[in-house]
């Protein structure tokens, strides 16, 4: 698309309108979007077209439409985080990521659905109803960024932004047959990303190909003086890496703990085909062991809720968002209570309660303190593994997309979906998921995860780009050509 735009074969306005047409056609069934900004999007498209007509220099993705996860603040555009709590709130400022997208000439179509405050693995926790997987509308699109991933798989948008706290970019990518990248922690500014768990959250690119993801990655990445935790160093050259298509001599570490028990057989067989493709391309496989991974999930479910219990305290109805029970008689504290009771969904409340408990005096050391120690151990595991291998790989998820409603009453089963993605967030390193085929038992997409050392995001793009090319050569056509929604269209 970017090439067609650059060549003047296609205007951004036409391209944008085509995507709104597709959204019109399929989003009733998919429900990827919470809000469409047709006016703003077409205005931006016109601006880009005008600049192009004048011969101004434009970025590589100028004029290309994008779907924005509703967790990022966009000035004047409703931003809900999938929660009733923020219904009607229009931020007075742009997230740094949004500023960068706008400056790059990218056309923001609208805001995509998500699990409330990014808590969930299925997008069923959205206060505005679930998103459906374009591969099978009765199944989940992953979460929390199910809307962003589904919009790509349903061809409603060619690019999307997600955020990943424990797998919220990669797991939806895996179950929708798309590409999703969680950059190194601090690689992309968190300013304007409505925090779930500050030390784990990271925004990243979602796309249909590794190269598209890399192009988007370079646009949104970089140091931001508004985010002290953003890395003040040059952005890894991920576009160059994605184009290398060469892994000769690279060592690929296969994580022993992330296969076997609990992993669906079709997932494992596609994953092994991916490994074979890499070996054929000249890479060397090494088995690595990361014993602390067994504790990662438990530690994550202490740290993330602890931070969220504090981060979500600000939603108290005093300054923005909904207000419940303010009848002139009740005290501010009572109104806060009623609002939080009505505004938050069950999963959010569950995590706030969990986190409040874990941080309580007398429990802090046993819970939050221990979880932070596990985090340190996880980082050591990764360091040891990266001493043996350039990148590490695993299936992104243990299973393909499950049915909507199937796990909604079993939070523990739901949490297990993120078993392979969480260690990456806990260690702050980079992680990518790209499609590696369809599981034979259900015909649903399987995700292949590549993990790279902190600030070496280029390595996963290099391996991902090579693997994608090898699989495409084998399949003859992109996997998304097989989506039934497309076929029915």
């Amino acid at each position, binding site marked *: 698309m970017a090439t067609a735009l650059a060549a003047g074969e296609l205007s951004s306005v036409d391209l944008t309108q085509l995507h709104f047409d597709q959204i019109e056609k399929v989003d009733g069934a998919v429900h990827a979007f919470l809000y469409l900004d047709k006016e703003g999007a077409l205005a931006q498209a016109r601006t880009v077209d005008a600049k192009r007509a004048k011969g101004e220099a434009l970025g590589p993705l100028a004029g290309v439409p994008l779907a924005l996860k509703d967790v990022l603040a966009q000035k004047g555009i409703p931003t809900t985080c999938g929660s009733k709590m923020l219904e009607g709130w229009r931020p007075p400022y742009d997230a740094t990521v949004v500023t960068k997208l706008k400056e790059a000439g990218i056309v923001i179509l609208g805001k995509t659905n998500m699990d409330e405050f990014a808590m969930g693995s299925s997008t069923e926790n959205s206060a505005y109803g679930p998103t459906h997987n374009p591969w099978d509308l009765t199944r989940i699109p992953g979460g929390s960024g199910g809307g962003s991933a589904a919009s790509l798989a349903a061809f409603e948008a060619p690019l999307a932004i997600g955020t990943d706290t424990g797998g919220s970019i990669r797991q939806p990518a895996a179950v929708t047959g798309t590409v999703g990248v969680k950059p190194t922690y601090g690689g992309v500014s968190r*300013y*304007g990303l409505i925090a779930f768990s500050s030390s784990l959250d990271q925004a990243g690119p979602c796309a249909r190909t590794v190269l598209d993801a890399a192009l988007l990655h370079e646009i949104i990445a970089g140091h931001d003086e508004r985010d002290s935790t953003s890395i003040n160093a040059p952005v890894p050259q991920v576009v160059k890496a994605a184009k290398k298509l060469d892994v000769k001599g690279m060592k690929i570490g296969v994580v022993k703990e992330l296969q076997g028990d609990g992993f669906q057989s079709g997932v494992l067989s596609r994953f092994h085909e991916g490994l074979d493709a890499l070996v054929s391309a000249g890479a060397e496989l090494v088995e690595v062991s990361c014993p602390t991974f067994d504790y990662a999930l438990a530690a994550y479910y202490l740290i993330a809720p602890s*931070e969220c219990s*504090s981060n979500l305290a*600000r939603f*108290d109805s005093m*300054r923005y968002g909904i207000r419940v029970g303010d009848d002139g008689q009740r005290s501010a504290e009572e109104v806060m209570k009623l609002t939080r009771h009505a505004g938050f969904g069950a999963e959010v409340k569950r995590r706030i309660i969990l986190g409040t408990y874990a941080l309580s*005096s007398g429990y802090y050391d046993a819970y939050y303190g221990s979880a932070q120690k596990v985090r340190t151990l996880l980082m050591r595991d990764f360091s040891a593994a990266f001493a043996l291998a350039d990148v590490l790989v695993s299936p992104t998820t243990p299973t393909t997309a499950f049915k909507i409603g199937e796990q909604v009453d079993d939070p523990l089963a739901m949490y297990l979906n993120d078993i392979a993605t969480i260690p990456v967030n806990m260690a702050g390193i980079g992680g990518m998921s790209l499609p590696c085929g369809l599981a034979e038992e259900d015909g649903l997409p399987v995700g292949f995860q590549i993990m790279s050392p902190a600030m070496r995001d280029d390595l996963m793009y290099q391996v991902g780009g090579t693997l994608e090319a090898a699989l495409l050569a084998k399949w003859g056509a992109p996997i998304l050509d097989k989506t039934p929604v497309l076929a029915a269209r």
Partner: protein
Amino acid sequence: MSQMVPMPLNYLNYDEAVAKYEPTLGLEVHVELNTKSKMFCSCSTEFGGEPNTQTCPVCLGLPGALPVVNGKAIESTILIGLALNCSIAPFSRFARKNYFYPDMPKNFQTSQYDEPICVNGYLDIEIATEEGPKQFRVEIERVHMEEDTGKSLHVGGATGRIHGAEYSLLDYNRAGIPLVEIVTKIVGGTGKYAPQVARAYVSELRDILRSLGVSDVKMEQGSMRCDVNVSLSPLDSGTLGTRSETKNVNSLRSVERAVIGEVIRQSNRLEAGERIVQETRHFLEESGQTRPGRSKEQAEDYRYFPEPDLVPVAPDSGWIEALRATLPERPSARRARLKAEWSVPDKEMTSLINAGLLDVVQETIELGAEPIRARSWWLGEISRLANERDVDPTTLITPTQVAEVISLIQNGDLTDNLARQVVEGVIAGAGRPSEVIAQRGLKVVSDDAALMLAIEAAIAAQPETAERIRGGNIPAAGALIGAVMKATGGQADAAKVRELLLKHLGQ
């Protein structure tokens, strides 16, 4: 007003209380730094702006906004730590203190908890006692940074308090203003001097902060506020009693009075066999007593944890040493220097320091006043007037005004007597010294001819007295001088009258 309760017969006064109990102190001082921008954003810290005009997504705690530490605030805090002989932590972190309150935008305060930036310092202070000056070392536990909250304004209702208000307004201009908290270790061994030690510590601390230029340290405006913790234990028991925490004491005098008030209150509770409740209390300016605030028996759980949105503060030693090199003269050293420069006797110097008048006296002298006059005006007449009104002398009149009055005396335009009237006028709000002089026509009659007329009139009225003076009875001149002074409405210079009179009568 609470009803007057008759005092029990065995009611202890302060002296009796400290004869039986040993007071132990703990002092927590909050200081607003005078940085241009807030602790975690670039909003202005200017005092008195229209409500909510000095705010942004960060200090309003809007979803998605992130804090960034103000480097100047860290520098100021390190300076404070160095001036208080603290070690500067090579690695310290911010922490979140979680609790819900409408004037807290994020419902947590970004503060420091178990990893403060400055630790283990001390401050040596001196107090005057009947046995001469006594030194005490107050040990500092920690100096840490945090952000201020917004302000609630309760509208309607009689009291301006939240209870009974019709509605409340919130002003977040103050939210995010940098605060430094300076916490002492337990201050023991002061015995009966506890109130003076508390005051001298806060006073010395205020002097140091002012000399560092890091804060306005205006206690009345709240840019410096003190929490006074007091506990009592029976003399020589070696135990520590339960403490009370008197919040937001906002003058040096009140710090001293709060300690006295708590010693008396707690000792009488203990005498009556009651226990001391651990609680926060509020200081009542009128009575010098405290009233209970919220009880801390069910300690609030603030669920502190390291602030994940901020990176640790790790000042390098080169920077710390560079800051150390910029530390100004210590106020105590300065006092020794000024004492020598002004040749002030020990006792008077102590009085100046205890009365908190050193700065104003220095300022008055810098404006051209003779040291001895500057001292005696502040310590004498102005302090007397302040005592009458039960206020701090420095709130009555400015050094500039005092220097102006003294300069008029030095030039012979005012007598001491007239100057007292000018000072009284200025304090009464009649305007600047020159305005008071103009309004009241207070001017020395220095015209020799006019004085001679009055002298001749006095001699004519009392010829026998004049004869006695001519005969060598100099002390008799007093009666004639008095008559001249009366005739000129007190505006003559008595010494000048004396000189002219004696000369006229051949003496």
